[in-house]
């Protein structure tokens, strides 16, 4: 029957997959216990405000973009544009619909972002790859312009900014750092669970099939255009919710400028560094991108005794990101998450080298 040469690499490849399935739930439960139980006890306001909240929101945004780019193969550089839609839509809903609970406003903002994402996804029927990316770039600039140009979106505030009119859930005020942290954590956990369901379902397989080879997907009966648009819509829903959380749970006050092209690139870097087509990768990528500046700052303090200019540190940070992006794209397109799983694989068989 089958020759030995076939079975050898297969046995090697299938081992980590099995390992992952059995071990993941325990690690995950421990992580959730820490996030919900320990962090609120131990975390101080600085950690919650400056590190954990942005980390979680960026993870969620990365997740949204990853569904479109990592799973469906449609590269987008307009992520922040859809975040802006979510932020401004949630703001509008909270402002203009009296008594609307916060969760519903977030979902509503996400749905409006999904609708806008769906519209910008229509060209994907005809346009592929680089050219599609350019249309998402157009979406980014167009949306930013819309939220600057029309004062209705920011309720005619002279500053052009929005801030949440109310931030409460079932009578609890969520303005404290801990309240905002729990709001963000709850949203992220819930939406991550949905995303895991999605990518393991037939919908997720259809997306990955389109990513890997769209002509073959059509031949076996997958409605390619419909699923591409669905990916745009779902991705934009996630980005929309992330945008609203970014504006109200992290920044407090935001404007169209909070969602500029740099933010879009930041989200794209998160998924490239973390891992395309991986749910956990978004969290690893977001952790990396939010912790690296802090580490660099600390390193600067230690090595140079605080004599280093903050601007230069920022430049250094950009250089490091640039080098890493190139390195990951060339050497490890599956990102940090792949490196971590390789490491775990090696540790599992550690004393034996072969």
């Amino acid at each position, binding site marked *: *029957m*089958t*020759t030995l*040469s*076939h*079975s050898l*690499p*297969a*046995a090697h*490849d*299938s081992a980590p*997959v*099995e390992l992952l399935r059995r071990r993941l739930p325990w690690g995950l439960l421990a992580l959730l216990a820490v996030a919900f139980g320990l962090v609120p006890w131990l975390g101080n306001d600085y950690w919650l405000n400056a590190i954990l909240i942005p980390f979680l929101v960026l993870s969620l945004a990365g997740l949204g973009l990853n569904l479109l780019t990592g799973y469906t193969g449609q590269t987008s550089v307009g992520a922040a544009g859809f975040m802006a839609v979510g932020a401004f839509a949630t703001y509008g809903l909270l402002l203009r619909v009296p008594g609307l609970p916060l969760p519903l406003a977030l979902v509503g903002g996400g749905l409006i972002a999904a609708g806008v994402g769906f519209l910008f996804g229509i060209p994907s029927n005809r346009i592929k790859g680089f050219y599609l990316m350019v249309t998402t770039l157009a979406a980014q600039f167009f949306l930013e312009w819309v939220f600057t140009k029309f004062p209705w979106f920011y309720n005619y505030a002279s500053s052009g900014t929005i801030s949440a009119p109310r931030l409460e859930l079932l009578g609890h005020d969520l303005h404290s750092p801990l309240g905002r942290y729990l709001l963000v954590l709850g949203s992220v956990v819930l939406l991550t669970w*949905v995303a895991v*369901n*999605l990518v393991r*379902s*037939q*919908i997720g*397989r*259809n997306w*990955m*099939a389109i*990513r*890997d*080879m769209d*002509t*073959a*997907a*059509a*031949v*076996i*009966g*997958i*409605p390619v255009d419909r699923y591409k648009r*669905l990916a745009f819509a779902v991705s934009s829903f996630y980005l929309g919710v992330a945008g609203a959380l970014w504006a109200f749970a992290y920044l407090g006050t935001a404007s169209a400028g909070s969602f500029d092209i740099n933010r879009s690139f930041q989200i794209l870097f998160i998924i490239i560094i973390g891992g395309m*087509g991986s749910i956990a990768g978004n969290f690893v990528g977001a952790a990396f991108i939010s912790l690296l500046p802090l580490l660099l700052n600390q390193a600067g303090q230690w090595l140079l005794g605080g004599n280093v200019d903050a601007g230069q540190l920022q430049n250094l940070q950009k250089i490091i990101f640039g080098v890493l992006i190139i390195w990951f794209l060339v050497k490890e397109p599956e990102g940090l998450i792949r490196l971590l799983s390789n490491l775990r694989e090696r540790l599992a068989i550690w004393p034996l080298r072969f």
Partner: protein
Amino acid sequence: MSIAENILEVRDISLSFKGVKAIDALSFAVRRGEICALIGPNGAGKSSLLNILNGVYRPDAGEVVFEAEHFQRIQPLEAARRGIGRTFQNNALFKKMSVIDNLLTGLSRHAQSGFLAQSLGLPGARREARQFREQAEGILEFLELQPWRDVAVGSLAYGLQKRVELGRALIAGPRLLLLDEPMAGMNAAEKQEMSRFIADVNRDLGTTVVLIEHDIQVVMGLSGHVVVLDYGRKVGDGTPAEVQANPEVIAAYLGTVH
């Protein structure tokens, strides 16, 4: 031969690429339940014909009759829905996905559960997922692919990839299976194995098969009906023995005696 006996009829199909005729007024019929082999030298128009049958190309003239329905052009999605399965010459698998996930994509058009049911993991969606998984396990067993079920397809040997592609087409329960060189690049043992799988599919599931193959030995052993193409024209049509005795076929393969 009555119409109902024919699952597929090709009538006066012509196709040209920028003025070069790939297929020239080609007609033949495939009977329900048979294995029909398309043979002919490179560039004879065999793959182009398969591409017309499942809607990847649009013919310049002629029509295709599938299950007594007439088509000027059939869309790929429509062809899949009506039960035409297909594999490709150079493998068109989803390389980063595992073997079982590749098979499961073949069931896409049978999926009933909606977006919310799937995203929230509702019982209906779970039941369907379980049922799909059982079907996929059945195919894995049938094609003896279990050792590789969770391996990314891109890392498999070429011959195994061909088998996965066959499985992906098969899982949807096609009535007509179009196989474009299912044994290309295989050694003798692998070819024999693949022939056995195709014969099993045909006998056990009753699937009609149209396949393209260059290895004449394999063709003669496997199929009961052979259609020979040369420069887009049909030069032979009949049982393997009839075709082998046809002087025009011999000329196409070995060159004419002057």
